[in-house]
C-alpha cells in the first residue's frame, strides 16, 4: 500500500511542480508542508487524478495511477479526499452525504457519523453545521468510501483554534484505528508536527526535505527548512557574515568553507541557539516582545534579524553580547536564501 511518485512534473501558467520523487509509506500519516503556492494541493490533486501530470508516474500498491501512457480515472483509484473547502453537497443532510459517497445504508452512515462525534447531527444540512462539524462530516464522508488512500487538504484551516486539537486527535485516532495511508496538506508547521508521522517539505514546486517531525524540527538540512520549520536566521560563512559567524561561534570552532553547485554552508540561528551574556558578538536590541516561553529580543546583525531569549528587564536600545548556546548548526543553501 505504498504511494510511489517518480519524476512527476506538472505546469500551469507560471507555476511548475517537480520533477518530484516521493515515497509515502503504507499505513502512515504523511504531511506535505510548505508555504502557500508551493504546489501541495496540486500534488494532492494529481494523486487523486483530478489533474493530469505532464510527465512521471504515480503508483499505489503496485498499481499505476498515472504514467506510462495510463491514466486511471479518479473514481477507480480507491482514493477519498477531504477538500479544503469541505465540498459538502449543500442539498444533502449529513447522513445522506455518507450514504451517497459510500453507497451505504442509513444505519451504516449514522454509525460512521457517531464515530466522528456527529451522531446527533445526522439530519443537518451543511449550511447548518459549524466549521468543525462540517470537517467531521467531510472526514466521515471520505471514510464512508472505504478508501485505500485518504487525502486531506488543509483539514484544520476552517476550524476555530480551540477546536483544532480535538479534530487533530480525531484524525490521528482514525489513522491508527484504520491503518489507512493518509496524506495531509498544510502550511502550518505546528499542525504538521501534530498530525504527521512523516513530513515532506515543499518549496516552489520542489521537494526540499523529507523526514520524521523530530528530524526536521531538530536538524533541518536546508536553508529553507531551517527558515520555514524553525524560523531561523541565516549567516553565510564566506561572505559578509563570515566575521560575525566567527565571533558567535568562537575561535575554536572550525567553520566549513566552499560551495558545491551554487550551494554554500550557512549558519542557522534560532532563539534557542543564542544566549545573551558578557562576551560574544556585540549588538543592540531593537525590539522586545513576549512569546509563549518568555520575553524574546530582536537585534539586527548583518542585515539579519537575530532573536534570542532575554530577561524581563531588557529594553530596546540596550547593548547585549550574543554567543552560541551549543554546537553550531550548518545547513546547505544558496546565498539568496539568506535574504529570503
Amino acid at each position, binding site marked *: 500500500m505504498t504511494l510511489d511518485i517518480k519524476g512527476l512534473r506538472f505546469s500551469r501558467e507560471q507555476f511548475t511542480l517537480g520533477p518530484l520523487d516521493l515515497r509515502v509509506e503504507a499505513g502512515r500519516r504523511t504531511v506535505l508542508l510548505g508555504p502557500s503556492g508551493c504546489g501541495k494541493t496540486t500534488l494532492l490533486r494529481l494523486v487523486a487524478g483530478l489533474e493530469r501530470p505532464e510527465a512521471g508516474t504515480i503508483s499505489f500498491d503496485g498499481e499505476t495511477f498515472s504514467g506510462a501512457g495510463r491514466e486511471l480515472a479518479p473514481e477507480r483509484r480507491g482514493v477519498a*479526499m477531504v477538500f*479544503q473547502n469541505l*465540498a459538502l*453537497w449543500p442539498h444533502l443532510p449529513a447522513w445522506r452525504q455518507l450514504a*451517497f459517497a459510500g453507497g451505504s445504508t442509513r444505519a451504516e452512515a449514522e454509525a460512521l457519523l457517531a464515530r466522528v462525534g456527529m451522531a446527533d447531527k445526522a439530519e443537518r444540512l451543511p449550511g447548518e453545521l459549524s466549521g468543525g462539524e462540517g470537517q467531521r462530516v467531510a472526514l466521515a464522508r471520505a471514510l464512508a468510501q472505504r478508501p485505500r488512500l485518504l487525502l486531506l487538504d488543509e483539514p484544520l484551516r476552517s476550524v476555530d483554534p480551540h477546536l483544532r486539537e480535538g479534530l487533530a486527535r480525531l484524525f490521528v485516532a482514525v489513522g491508527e484505528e484504520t491503518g489507512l495511508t493518509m496524506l495531509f496538506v498544510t502550511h502550518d508547521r505546528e499542525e504538521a508536527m501534530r498530525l504527521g508521522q512523516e513530513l515532506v517539505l515543499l518549496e516552489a514546486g520542489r521537494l526540499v526535505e523529507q523526514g520524521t517531525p523530530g528530524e526536521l524540527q531538530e536538524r533541518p538540512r536546508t536553508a529553507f527548512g531551517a527558515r520555514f520549520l524553525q524560523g531561523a536566521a541565516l549567516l553565510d560563512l564566506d561572505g559578509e557574515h563570515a566575521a560575525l559567524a566567527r565571533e558567535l561561534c568562537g575561535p575554536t570552532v572550525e567553520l566549513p568553507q566552499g560551495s558545491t553547485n551554487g550551494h554554500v554552508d550557512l549558519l542557522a540561528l534560532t532563539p534557542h541557539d543564542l544566549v545573551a551574556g558578557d562576551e560574544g558578538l556585540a549588538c543592540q536590541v531593537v525590539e522586545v516582545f513576549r512569546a509563549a516561553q518568555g520575553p524574546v529580543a530582536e537585534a539586527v546583525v548583518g542585515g539579519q534579524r537575530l532573536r534570542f531569549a532575554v530577561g524581563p528587564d531588557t529594553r530596546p536600545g540596550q547593548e547585549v553580547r550574543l554567543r552560541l548556546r551549543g554546537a553550531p548548526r550548518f545547513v546547505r543553501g544558496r546565498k539568496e536564501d539568506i535574504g529570503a
Partner: protein
Amino acid sequence: MLSTAVDWEMLGNTLLLGLSATLWAVLLGTGTAWLCNRTDMPGARWIGMSALLPILFPPILVAASFTDLCDARGFVVIGLVMAVAHMPFTLALTARGLRSVDGRLYEACLLARGRGAAERMLLRQVLPDILAGALLVLVFVVTEHGVPEFLSVKGKPWRVYSEAVFLKWSVPDLPGSLRSAEATAFSVPLIAVCAVFAWLCLRARRRGSLVTLAGDFRPLPVRRLGRWRWPALLLALAPVTLGLVVPTWRMAAWTAGATANKPMGLDVVKQSFRMAWADWGGNLGYTLLVAALVGLVVIALGGLLGWYSARGRRPWIEGLTMATLAVPAILLGVGFIRLWNRGGLLSDLYESPAALVAAYATRFLPLGVLALANAWRRVPRELEEAGVLTGRGTGARLLGLRLPLVAGSLGSVWILAWLLSLRELDLAVLLKAGNSMAVRPISNAVHFGYEDKAAALSLMLLVCAAAPLIVRLLATGKTGEATS
C-alpha cells in the same frame, strides 16, 4: 440590401427605436432594482417582484392596451411599449448584480473614501449586469416585428428593418427559394448589428459572472431614504403600473365589454370567457404544452452546453449560441420553413409541434446557456470532484448531485423559456404549427376588433403564465429566488 434610401431609413429607425427602448428599460428597470434592493422603500420586496411581471404579457398586448387607453402612437410610444415589455431583463440582472456584491466591499470604500466613492464603486461592480440587461433588451427590440407593425397599422407608421425582412419574404409572386434568399440577404445588416450587441452582451455577462458569492457573504447595507421614501415608492410603481396594471386593467375592461358596444357587466365577462374558451381553449392547451416542452428542451440543452462552457473551458460555446440570438425571429422562422418544408416526412415534421418547439428552443437557447453556464460557474468545482471520487456512476452523480446543485437555476431558466414562448409572436406568425399558439388569435383579435374575447384569452394566458412563478414562490417562500 441597403440599396435604397428607404432601406437605410428603416435600419436607422430600428437602431433609434432600439436605443430609445433600451434607455427607457434601463431607467425603469435599473432604477426600480436599485430602489428595491438598496433602500428602505416601503414594500420594496413586493414591488421588486411585481415589476418583473410585465414579462408575462406578450408585447403586442401591452401595445394594444396603450393604444386603447390614450390613442397613443408613433416612435415614442413604440419605444416605451418595448421598454416596458422588456424592462424585466434590466431589472432582474441589475438586482442580481446588487445581490452579488459583498457588502463589506461597499463598507470598506465608504470608510475610506465616503458615500460618493462607495456608490461609484458599487456602480462599477454592477455595471456589467446593467449592460448585459440593456444589451439583451436592445437585441430583442431591434429584432421585433409585431409591435412596430401593430402600432404602425394603428397609428403613425414607424417602419423597422425586421418588418421589411418579413415583407421581402412574403412577396406573393416570387418562388419560395428566391424569397428566402432575398429575406436572408436583406437581413445581413440587422444580423451584423445584433451580433455586435450579442457579443458585447456576452462580454458584459462574463465580467458580471466574476462577482462571486463567498461563504461568509454579507449583503449590501440598506440606505435610509427618510422623507424621500414615499416619492421613491411612486417612482418604483411606474414600471409596475405601465407594464402590469394598465394591461391587466384594459384586459379586464375589454372582457367586461368596454370595446364591444355592450353594457359592461359580469354577464359580459362570463360570456367573454365562455366564448374565448369555446373558440380558443384548444389553442390555450396547445400553447401551454409547447411552452412547457420548449422550457424542457432549453434546460436540457442549455444545461449541457452551459456545463461544457463552464467546466470544459470552452467559452466559444456561449459565443456560438449567442450568435443565434442575433438572428431575428422572422429570419429564424424563414430558415425553419426552408429547412423543414420540403415535402414528404420533413413536411410532416414541419407541420407538427416538433418544428415549433425546435424553433422556439433555438430562439431562447442562448439565454439558457448563458444563465446555466453562470450557474455552473458558481458551483464550486470541488463539489463535483468530490462526487467523482465516490466512484458512483455518471447517472447517479447527475441525478443525485449535479442537477440538485443547479436546480434553482434550471427552474428559473425553464420559467424564462416558458414565459418567452407564451409571448413570442413573430415565430408563431411564420410557422404553420405556430398558428395555433394563443398569441396568434390574440394578435388577430386586437388587430380586427373582437377584443372582449381576446382579452379573456389573454387573462387566461396570463394566469397560466404566472402559475409556475406562483408555484415556485410557494415552494421556496422567497420572492427573490422565485422571480430571478
